[in-house]
């Protein structure tokens, strides 16, 4: 009574289904979250290009600013802004997971850890806006 015992490898389903991140909503949202890093990186590149154009003189810089007004560029910025916001908000809401703050036996409510993030964001944004708009 000794059969040849085979086990199906764990990836039998992988051969039969859509990619794992399309199978369920939480996985899809996770991939979107990870994708935000691409847009953040792309924006960094644009920022660096802008600094370089600035270094090349007035004409180069103004030509660069003009290119930013093209429909494609505007579309890119809208999409990038959306992803950046998604990135920020999802990470704010994950901070309570990484920090287990307790007062006595009770754990501090997640909202109390998330709120300071938003508050700091609002304050910093206000400071940056003031600098940009005061002139």
């Amino acid at each position, binding site marked *: 009574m000794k*059969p*040849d*015992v*085979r*086990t*199906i*490898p*764990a*990836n*039998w*389903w*992988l051969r039969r289904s859509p990619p*794992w*991140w399309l*199978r*369920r909503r*939480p*996985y899809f949202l*996770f991939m979107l979250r*990870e994708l935000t890093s691409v847009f953040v990186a792309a924006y960094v590149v644009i920022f660096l290009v802008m600094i370089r154009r600035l270094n090349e003189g007035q004409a180069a810089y103004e030509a660069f600013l003009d290119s930013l007004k093209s429909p494609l560029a505007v579309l890119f910025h809208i999409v990038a802004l959306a992803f950046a916001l998604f990135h920020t908000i999802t990470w704010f809401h*994950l901070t309570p*997971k*990484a*920090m*287990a703050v*307790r007062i*006595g*036996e*009770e*754990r501090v409510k997640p909202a109390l850890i998330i709120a300071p993030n938003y508050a700091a964001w609002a304050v910093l944004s206000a400071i940056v806006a003031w600098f940009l708009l005061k002139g």
Partner: protein
Amino acid sequence: MANSTSEGTMRLEVFRYSPEKGEEPRFQTYEVPFRKDWVVLDALNHIKDQSDGSLSFRWSCRMGVCGSCGVMVNGVPKLGCSAFLRDYYPNPIRVEPLANFPVLRDLVFQLDSFLEKLKSIQPWIVRRDGEKPVSEGEYLQTPAQHARFKDFSMCINCMLCYGACPVVGMEPHFLGPAAIALAQRYNLDSRDQGRDQRQETVASHDGIWQCTFIGECSAVCPKHVDPAGAIQQAKLASTVDWFKEVLWPFGGREKR
């Protein structure tokens, strides 16, 4: 189970596989009575008792504490004893063995890899200065100290978290949510002095750093252990350790 009047029927599509037969796995459809307080496990037992005794699955306590009956219900890891038919009725449900583990037979999966990972994190109280004699009584531990690791001690080893984690599916050596949560359970226990000993395994590439914080492990955990939290907290703690070592190489970091 008392007889209540039948409230309709429900269809189950259950994964079947028998290694002896050499066939490919398949799905078999069963019709079971629908009772509003039945769980998936009740349906499986009904099938086994009344119509098809060859359906193999694990179960024992049927109250969500032994961890035996983990399965995939419509692609989501669930305990068979806690997934109520009424949450799916009248639609059919698909029952499959827990994902990311080799399948031995029908809904029975091989969980030895988990036991190896559990053992590797040294899940016991480590005392560097030796255990005090029993005659000196208990180690004192305030309720606040207990609260630090309490949630992580609730793991029933059901492995639903492993079934939910795509990384476990792709990287077989990843320690995984439950093992790391249990490592944290001991690391944070005030009676334990073994965190340094565990770090080599826990803070390794196959440990916490393999985790990309998808967070589904905590979402499916039936006991609210929050393994994702355990892993991120461990990452934070390890990172802080690293900075301290770099900035104060000769500093007296309290060894635990």
